[in-house]
């Protein structure tokens, strides 16, 4: 079959480039069947395949060794919302902003702060990064209750379902969230939704020192305020800050914020602690340019990790800035555009030298790819991941080189 799919194939151009690699062909399937036909045809042709949604993360991940076909999921744009069940099944090509707008009309949301503007649901899933508000509902992976994926060989496979509570079968969606499309192309996903909270408070305060930051986090853990986000913002220069988001009823967030401010503001000039009732524009978005390093650390070490990144950046004259969820230890170090490969290597090696810290480059500038920096560092379980990859994509045609399973040099494996 797939005559139709093949008819829809056009020549690729510079605008289709994945980490600088221009695909020979590009196609925009109109539905899941066409997508399946396209991938089956690509299998017959032995083509390598990468997927794109909004095109906001085409420069994320490793540089592919080959892209014969770029699949644009933009036409898989569909929202099937069951407000009474707080569930929505959404096509991969649906813009995240469009989904948010539709859900908001029913007083609901997908409880994840996107880290890029203009992305699609498929891209959100394939890159897998969760923004600040992940303390109450978990990260993105916790919100996916079902997924339909077109396997590399064109077979359409579903896991999970449309109910929140379900333990039938393997939760394969977990492998695709953050898998960069290397195990198949995500066609749609079903999400658990949450009610939009009626009120919000954003408390913001400076963190004059590392000791101060650690003290504030200890106070936060001791409080009963139950924040939705605890964000740290730690540049090399210009002063570090803490942002705490509370969500709930209007009366509730008011008194919770009062209590929290009283606890956190001790020792600070009153005017330096602000309380707002809305999030600032661009909340949670990562810088659109430059290199991004995902830094995962035990939560109690989050301030120390941010301070360490600043110290390492400062030592190589690179103005890095660390943001992220201090309560979970999920941080991102943003490296400004144009940073030298040697400087990035110093940063990465410095961070990776700490036991229990993981630093992976989620977006590298082209010159860093060319310099061959180690994007991944140590990845425990890599042998298992590679076995899964070989089972699902034996010819390694799906975005080869973009994910750790294809990393050119074998990262060391940690043994327990």
């Amino acid at each position: 079959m797939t005559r139709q799919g093949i008819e829809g194939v056009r020549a690729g151009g510079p605008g289709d480039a994945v980490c600088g690699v221009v695909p020979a062909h590009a196609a925009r399937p109109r539905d899941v069947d066409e997508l399946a036909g396209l991938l089956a045809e690509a299998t017959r042709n032995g083509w390598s395949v990468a997927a794109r949604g909004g095109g906001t993360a085409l420069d994320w991940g490793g540089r592919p060794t080959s892209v014969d076909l770029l699949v644009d999921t933009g036409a898989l744009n569909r929202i099937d919302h069951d407000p009474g069940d707080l569930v929505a099944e959404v096509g991969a090509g649906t813009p995240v902003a469009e989904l948010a707008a539709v859900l908001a009309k029913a007083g609901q949301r997908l409880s994840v702060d996107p880290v890029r503007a203009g992305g699609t649901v498929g891209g959100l899933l394939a890159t897998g990064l969760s923004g600040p508000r992940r303390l109450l509902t978990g990260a993105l992976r916790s919100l996916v209750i079902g997924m339909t994926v077109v396997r590399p060989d064109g077979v359409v496979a579903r896991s999970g379902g449309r109910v929140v509570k379900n333990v039938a079968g393997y939760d394969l969606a977990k492998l695709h969230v953050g898998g960069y499309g290397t195990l198949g192309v995500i066609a749609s996903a079903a999400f658990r939704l949450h009610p939009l909270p009626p009120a919000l408070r954003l408390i913001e305060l400076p963190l004059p020192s590392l000791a101060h930051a650690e003290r504030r986090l200890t106070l936060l853990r001791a409080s009963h305020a139950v924040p939705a986000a605890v964000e740290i913002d730690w540049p090399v220069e210009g002063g570090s800050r803490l942002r705490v988001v509370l969500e709930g009823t209007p009366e509730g967030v008011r008194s919770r914020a009062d209590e929290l401010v009283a606890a956190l503001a001790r020792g600070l000039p009153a005017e330096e602690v602000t309380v707002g009732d809305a999030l600032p524009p661009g909340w949670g978005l990562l810088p659109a340019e430059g290199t991004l390093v995902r830094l995962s650390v035990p939560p109690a070490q989050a301030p120390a990790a941010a301070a360490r990144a600043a110290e390492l950046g400062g030592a190589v004259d690179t103005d890095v800035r660390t943001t992220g969820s201090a309560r979970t230890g999920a941080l991102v170090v943003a490296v400004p555009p144009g940073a030298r490969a040697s400087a990035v290597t110093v940063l990465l090696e410095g961070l990776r030298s700490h036991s229990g810290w993981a630093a992976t480059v989620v977006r590298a500038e082209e010159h860093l790819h060319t310099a061959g920096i180690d994007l991944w560092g140590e990845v425990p379980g890599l042998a298992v991941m590679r076995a899964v990859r070989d089972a699902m994509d034996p010819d390694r045609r799906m975005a080869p080189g973009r994910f750790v399973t294809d990393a050119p040099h074998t990262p060391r494996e940690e043994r327990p």
Partner: protein
Amino acid sequence: MPDTAHPIPAAVAALVPRLRAICGGDGVLTDTSRRRVYDSDGITHHREIPGVVVLPTTAEQVAAVVGLCAGTGVPFVPRGAGTGLSGGALPHPEGVLLSTSRMRRIIEIDPANECAVVEPGVANLDVSRAAAPHGYYYAPDPSSQQVCSVGGNVAENSGGAHCLKYGFTVDHVRGLDVVTPDGALVRLGGKAPDAPGHDLIGAFTGSEGTLGVTTRITVGLTRLPERTVTLLAAFTSMDAGGRAVGDIIAAGVLPSAIEMMDALAIEAAEAAVACDYPAGAAAVLIVELDGPAVEVRAQLAEVTRLCAAAGSFETRTAADADERARIWKGRKSAFAAVGRISPAYIVQDGVVPRTALSEVLRRITELSAQSGIRVANVFHAGDGNLHPLVLFDDAEPGAAERAEEVSGAILDLCVEHGGSITGEHGVGVDKACKMPRMYSPDDLATFDLFRGALDPEGIANPYKLLPTPRLCGERPGVRTGVHPLVESGRAEQF
């Protein structure tokens, strides 16, 4: 008198000296009467005497046992506390039953990182007990939490009454040490979130022992809430109770639990524990709210108002631990209590979208009326997770079969309404043949591709989770028997 009815199969007997060298003499059980203790898990109508039982005490021992199995092609079945309700720990008669019951150290409670590190045999509730002095608890609370093990919870992705708000086991696991079916010990994640690469922790959780054995688990701990309030609301009909559930959710309130019982379940609970629920109730709702005191106060007012509006004729509120325990007593005793009003029963576990609850409950009532088989309903209403108790008299010829039919028809109703064949008990051996009702052959073949990537020889808990031709009849696209099960006639149970 020695029990000699089930000699150890030759392939397993050949391993015993090496198993003893690995686990020590007291860590290997060969005597039939001692092996028989392990012949089932919580679902006792599936029984097999394991070839041999091993009780390792360290991860290295687990790895060595699994490595030995891998080298000889002998299957192994992991087992935690044996409280599972899908036969996931049903032994293989020609395999090794690997019990983690001697690995029960709480390695660390780490309040600064809000996590605990435990061995797999640690009882679920013991984690909360150890964390309580620091102001924390371990959120997943399956009803067997006093005895069930954290390792078993990981295998089954256990939920519990409070997963409505706090999520399942998978949402709380940060790190896992896993012995994969080739005998390799792999450390995934730890105290830091978002382990790099694929989320193997997420995929491993809920894999029912088919991808290996956990030897160490790092779980997130949750801060004990400032306030917890439990509300009991009585209704004159299930419909009215169901309406209240929908209204609570629609109002944007997220209780930590919403439980519902019907008249028959209430009757059983009253007979067993005199829980003193309001007289004349055809349905009771138990709604638990927790969080900051100021938020709980607002939510309680809202929930009370919504229950009244939906027709509740009596509500009771419990704010201290003793009062809360009294309200929960009836609910928690319901399963056992049914034993008092019926000689035998089947506990079913299915899920429907919450909005389909009323319709499905009506259909269950019809099924019950048509078959003459009584069905008591006790369930997690907030997330549509039904636990119908199908009552029958096992002394009456044909009654068990009719009860099985009703129980199976209830699952069909769940699937028909877009739900699931299991919300928390797992697939195991009990529902392996029901998987095709929910998933296509391509879906199942894809599950099998994943399983085969980790366990190409099919030695890790074989014949569980996925349908096999031997048990379920020939079906295309599914693994054909790698390790033939003995001709035990088990197929007739499906």
